[in-house]
């Protein structure tokens, strides 16, 4: 692919990055920084280990959407 992605995809990635940085830093983390726990697991740890796979899922969905937009490019991936 020669051309860079459309600006909107580009911006969406940057937006996700900023959102991620906010959600993984003070003061957002302060919400979960308590002694409470869920299913016996401290709530902060619970937050990290739920939020993390969710962010991975977001990337996964995004990537898949990108691939759906350029189907032939992902197809020749295997035998190049």
């Amino acid at each position, binding site marked *: *692919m*020669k*051309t*860079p*992605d459309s600006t909107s*995809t*580009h911006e969406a*990635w*940057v937006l*996700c*990055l900023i959102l*991620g*940085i906010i959600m*993984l*830093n*003070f003061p957002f*983390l*302060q919400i979960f*920084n308590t*002694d409470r*726990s869920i*299913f*016996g*697991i*401290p709530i*902060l*740890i619970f937050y*990290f*280990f739920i939020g*993390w*796979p969710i*962010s*991975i*899922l977001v*990337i*996964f969905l995004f*990537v898949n959407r*990108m*691939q759906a937009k350029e189907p032939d*490019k*992902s197809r020749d*991936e*295997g035998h*190049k």
Partner: protein
Amino acid sequence: MISPLIVTLVSIGYFALLFGVAYYADTRCNSGRSLINNPYIYSLSLGVYCTSWTFYGSVGLAATSGLDFLPIYLGPTLIAFTWWFLLRKMVRVSKDQNIVSIADFISSRYDRSSGLGALVTLISVLGIMPYIALQLKAVARTFDLLISPTTVAEVGLQDLFPVLPGYVDTAFVMALVLSLFGVLFGARHLDASERHEGLVAAIAFESIVKLIAFLAVGVFVTFGLFDGFGDIFNRFAQQFPERLSLFRLDTEAIPYTKWFTLTFASMMAIMFLPRQFHIMVTENADEKHIKEAMWRFPGYMFLLNIFVIPIALGGLLLNGGDTSQADYFVINLPLAAGHPWLALLVFIGGFSASAGMVMVSSITLSTMILNHLIMPLILRLNVNINDFSAILINLKRFGIFAVVFLGYFYYRVIGDSYALANMGLISFIAASQFAPAVIGGLYWKRANKKAALVGLILGFLFWFYTLLVPSFVLSGWMESSILDLGPFGIGLLRPLQLFGLTGFDIWSNSLFWTMFFNLGAFLALSFFCKQKSDEREHALLFVDAYAETQVPGQRRRISKAPTIMEFVELMSKFIGEKPANTAITAYLQDQEINSRGSMADHEVPALKAFTERTLAGYVGAAPAKIILDNYLSTRGSEMEDVFDIFGSVTLSRTASRDQLSVLYEAAKIVSRGSDLDKTLNGLLNLLMQQFRFDLCVIRFLDEQAMSLVVRAQMGMTSTHFGESERNLDRDTYIGTTFLSNTATVVNDTEYLDKLESAQIIHREKIQSFAHSPIIVEGEPVGVISAFSRTSKGIFTDEFIALLNNLARQVGIAWRNHQQLVKLLSAREQERDLEIAKTIQRSLLPAGIPELSNVDLAGICVPTHAVGGDYYDFIRRPNGALDLVVADVSGHNIGSALIMAETRTFIQAMRQIEHPYAMLDELNRFFCEDLSRADLFVTMFYLQYHPQTGQLLYANAGHNKPVLWRSQSGTCEMLDGDGLILGIKPDIDFEQRECILSIDDILVLYTDGVTEAEDHNEEFFGELRLCALIEEYHHLAATELIDQILEQIRIFTGNRHFIDDVTLVVMKVIHQNSLNIAAKQQTIK
């Protein structure tokens, strides 16, 4: 406790397996079915990020300080969001430029600076060598733990094999093995830009092994030793309620600032650690793999971290809260629980983590040291070696050993200390220093070499001062006073509270100050320092990495250029003959080579750039540049900017801007010049000034001669060459250019196919030339030509585009000129007409003479163009009245003047009694003037004697006047023989006469009346005129004229007459009848 023999055997077996995997991958690669060219392997190979520091250290951190192991993985997950543009751009640029390492990347971006390359290498080595030591330590320590878990003291191989010399311990053997692996996988042959398929496959395999091992021990601890996650947390909460802060942030151990710092540093580390750069960028097989790795790699890290806290808590619970061995819980727990095979698996996993990191780092660092420290040195010293390639590969192999063993000695000398344990993070912050130079370099054109260099130096110095110095102090090798009181007792300079900034942990303090100075200097200097054109060109290769067209090198030429074979020889010297031949064959496939096997002049710089790029793949960008520069300078060849030949214009990637400026200048000249020759000379002057031509010529088509005639010329004084006309045929290049309406370029005049042109061109020693047609509204009107006596191959496509544009400007100037000429003549005519009109109007009688028995009226309706109509009344002393109507041919000042003369003549000659005599005199007087001016005059001359009613008249070819007889009620036409005035000098004019009676009406007119046309192009004619007079005979003379004019207008259907319309009406009346009419009017 496991038998050392078993551990050794298993380890050796694992080495063999790894090597088998690598070997298999290499074989597959050679047979063209790459094993690693898929997103799974790529994603797994990124796992080299997770070293033994992760494998063992995460649990240790979780058990002692809490959640601060997490940011190390959360940061990379976050930065993965940017991979599709940031990482992909890095990969794209690196592939285009044959970049092989982070040092190469930064050096290439900033004008292939050797200084920057060396600096990055230095920082990397200092930052990472101890990190290697940490890996060796981990492997050695776990090996020892396996064979004698009870002994805390290091036993190592010494106890097992007492024959070994004293310095050989487990770590030494590991260092040896890992170096060997590095050489086998990474330095069997030289090309660094070629991917190391075996190495990547081995790394990916190791990533799987370490994941499986860690998951296995995690499941074992969580579900074997305990009853699931909840159970561990609950029991921990009960047993160590005072340690619940391990699950919290904002604690003494992990303030939010530290949390942020760790996240940021790991974001940078995953991108810019040399080994990460190598695996992610250099070893990337396909950009599309990035897309997959964006979620697979974070997923991998997530899996690797699920059990970190459970294992840590389990370890604490089982060890009674003792954290001294927390780093080895992973291996100790299965050992203590009596599962040595699981422990062995863990050991293999940990070994994998260490081995991967050590191999990749050592290969990368070795390449960097070779390319950026040793090569520039060798080249500077000008060592004369015929075959560099063998030396280079051996140097690289040696480098790998050197790096690993430096790590080993570091470990031996420094041992277990603060400095070693925290080396991971220290190197993360070191890698962060590359961020401004790399990211800024990728997205900011103005980022320049000086800025990157100063930024990196400052970042490095502050890194050293705020991290390494304190870690040395904490390890006890330096006076602690420097931390407490500052150097020389200056409190402001305390490394951990630099410049009085307190309240930060060591990492945040360091990151803040390094970034503050690094980024600050980078931004400020980029703003305030200018780039050289060369540097800018290289910057564009990075910033505009996705741009379709890249034409580097075209703006230059090489004097005394080496041939293709010489370039190949040069390459062979450094990379070996076979790779050199392969490379050049691939390159030449898409190049045009002329019949003599050499390349066009402007192709050579591209070949030079290719050679440099190829060499860069082996030795790095900066050394490649030095090699090429040295080579060319010893030959006496020089890279000349086209700037040198072409003046101030560079035809390159940035040419469009320069072209625009030339065209802008040209447009200014065109719009300024009113004089065509001045404009053309201005344009040629511009062309000569901007480009060093020997001759520039503009020819225009001479339509009568059907040849191209020189209109403007500048340069070379040879008259024959420039001045000669060119026939409009295809025998010359100029003729062809004109006829085909397309530009002609001859970059080497040794190859000419037009004999006529060739003769002239060879005589004038022209080396190259170009013609471009001057086109106006699609049609050629001329040709603009540029000739060079000095250089071949200077006419690039860009230049021709420029020349075509200039030709268009010339066309505009030419058209402007043509229009101007037309406009001027039109204006002149207009002024003429104005004068003529004024003259004409002044000639017409100012008033109607008052006569007692004649009702007179006359009118001349001039059209917008001047007419030659004229009428006049002349009263004679004897009471007679002369009537004249005349029409002078032509519509300009000349005819107006003739008319004026005629009038003057008639007025002056009123003593001539008879009309015929008057015409005769007039003709005699004017004949010569008129025939010389190609003019003639028609005239009807009458003389009326009111007393007698006698009318004498003579005609000089004028329209016959109408006489309406009141008695008969019919019209007569008056006529007399006679020619038009001005035809010949002697004409006999016949004079006739008749008697007018009361109420007779005489109407004189010009052809504007009878030749007025209607829509069907039918003339108004004399019959209609007669009918009109008959119908309106009762009207007074003025009214009759009005009526006639009105009827003509109705007839033509137009308010305006095409030609001048002149009417003179004379009605014979009683003296009394006029009075009666006047009286009647007053009564009414």
